[in-house]
């Protein structure tokens, strides 16, 4: 396949997200402007100006009308996707790390980092249909996890919130009461910071990637460990194909290994694994730096990866990809 290279960001990429129809790709990077691209040919549509810090995460509503972004400037902002206009700003006391719209787009979960004496927290905000009615008040505030929460998403039917972070424990919280429902087992879980989390297209299982060079597949309701995928590199980003049983892991390089391994250009790859057999199917090389973000198009026929090098690479699969057999 011939990837399409998009160099709109001057700083490392942090997050990639496709809209539900699969025609728009939103990219967040450490430069302060999230960008939206057309997902078929990589043409840039626009950029959103307003943040004063690295944008860590974004999510787009189901009708592709609203975009929410979380940034290190201690705000999360709501945008009009089409015009690029800022609709609302949620202010926090510490950098906002992860954002996610609920099913139905009426609520959003935003996590904030621990900052000075403030512990990390999970905020749930109501999103009004009419942006003029939007308020900044929280519906729910959960405090408790130690360390940074790197990713928090809604569970099935918005009943639960799943969070994962620096303490390597995955937690499931009740979204109405804020009570902790489940925690992942320390023995069978990750050993180091969980960097990324991706839900399956039906929401029944999710994948977490961690700096302990593995990714694990969990059941959403019971939080039992289903599968483990082992790599040689710390995992920065994970994605699951909505079409085939494939799991993609993108990673970096251990800081200690930087000087001993030779830095050949284009060597960082996104590794494909068979979801069920846990075996490596192959890798897609090309990035000049560690891969920080991965996303699959909802139709399963293309995927994109964003790296430390500031490039977004959009890959449309060759027909052979769909015939891969182990």
């Amino acid at each position, binding site marked *: *396949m*011939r*990837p*399409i*290279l*998009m*160099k*709109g960001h001057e700083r490392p990429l942090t997050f990639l997200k496709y809209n539900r*129809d*699969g*025609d*728009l790709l939103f990219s967040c990077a450490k430069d302060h*402007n999230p*960008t939206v*691209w*057309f997902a*078929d*040919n*990589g*043409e*840039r*549509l*626009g*950029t*959103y*100006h307003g943040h004063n810090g690295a944008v860590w995460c974004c999510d787009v509503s189901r*009708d*592709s009308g609203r975009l929410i972004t979380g940034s290190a400037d201690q705000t999360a902002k709501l945008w009009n996707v*089409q*015009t*690029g206009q800022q609709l609302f700003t949620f202010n926090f006391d510490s950098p906002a790390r992860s954002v996610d719209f609920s099913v139905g787009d009426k609520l959003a979960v935003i996590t904030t980092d621990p900052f000075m004496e403030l512990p990390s927290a999970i905020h749930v905000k109501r999103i009004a249909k009419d942006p003029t009615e939007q308020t900044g008040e929280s519906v729910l505030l959960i405090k408790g996890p130690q360390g940074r929460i790197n990713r928090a998403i809604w569970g099935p039917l918005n009943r639960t919130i799943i969070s994962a972070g620096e303490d390597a424990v995955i937690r499931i919280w009740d979204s109405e009461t804020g009570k902790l429902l489940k925690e992942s087992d320390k023995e069978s879980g990750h050993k180091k910071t969980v960097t990324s989390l991706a839900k399956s297209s039906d929401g029944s299982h999710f994948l977490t990637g961690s700096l302990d060079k593995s990714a694990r597949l969990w059941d959403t309701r019971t939080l039992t460990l289903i599968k483990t*995928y*082992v*790599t*040689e*590199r710390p995992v920065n980003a994970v994605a699951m194909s909505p079409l085939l049983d494939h799991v993609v892991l993108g990673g970096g*390089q*251990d800081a*200690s*290994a930087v000087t*001993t*391994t030779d830095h050949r250009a284009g060597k960082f790859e996104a590794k*494909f*694994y068979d979801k069920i057999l*846990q*075996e*490596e*199917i*192959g*890798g*897609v*090389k*090309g990035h000049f730096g560690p891969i920080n973000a991965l996303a699959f198009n909802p139709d399963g*026929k*293309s995927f994109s990866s964003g790296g430390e090098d500031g490039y977004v690479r959009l*890959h*449309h699969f060759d027909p052979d990809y769909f015939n*891969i*057999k*182990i």
Partner: protein
Amino acid sequence: MAHQGEPTKLRWGELDEDDGEDLDFLLPPRQVIGPDDNGIKKVIEYKFDEDGNKVKITTTMRTRKLANARLSKRAVERRSWPKFGDAVHEDVGSRLTMVSTEEILLERPKPLGSKTEEPKTAGDPLAQFQKGAVLMVCRTCGKKGDHWTSRCPYKDLAPPSEGFVDKPAASDAAAATAGATKGAYVPPGMRAGAERTGGSDMRRRNDENSVRVTNLSEDTREPDLLELFRPFGPVSRVYVAIDQKTAMSRGFGFVNFVNREDAQRAISKLNGYGYDNLILRVEWATPRAN
């Protein structure tokens, strides 16, 4: 009389005599054979070259689509949204988005799964070939009994490292768990779960059943040798020495049989056999191989 000043202009009245042979000045129309299933389009044009000869030019083109965009109605609307933010000042020549010049493939790791075949062949790895089928192992994709490496349909895969010449039973999990503490490269032979003694035994056994064939004709190649030696039993490998510069056979080659008895029979029967105008000499590859 008025026409005498224009000798090249033809009058239809003069064309009666010949049945259209004088219509040579006319060229057949341009034909376009539209893109077929593979996207191949042919355009056939005719023109006159310098000597006045009619020349037929066939141009074959293949259009390759990078991607299919089937957009929903709303997506089509979004396509016509005006640009905003930084994209407003985008000039057409901006190199923000470009297609990669390299073809990137999903590179498969070592030979693919004969994982399922492992338990079956636990006892005698060659038991399944007692019927006399040729034990063909393709080095690129690891499939047994289907095709040789040179005929691999998956030729574009990254070729596996040397350690895996004839180890179809190598476990894929070995590739995934590198296990090195530093994250440095671990050679396949040293990874957890890599077969070591088993593989080398098989190879050595095969090399002891190696038959050298000399006095081959210039255009003899591997398939020819395979065809010649196959009737004696399963063959695991054939090799013909080729001179790189002339691309012709250097006159000798090697055939590795799976079973020693078959190799012995081949030697007895084919030594002195006339093949392509030359008398073959067939013997054990290592003298007195026992």
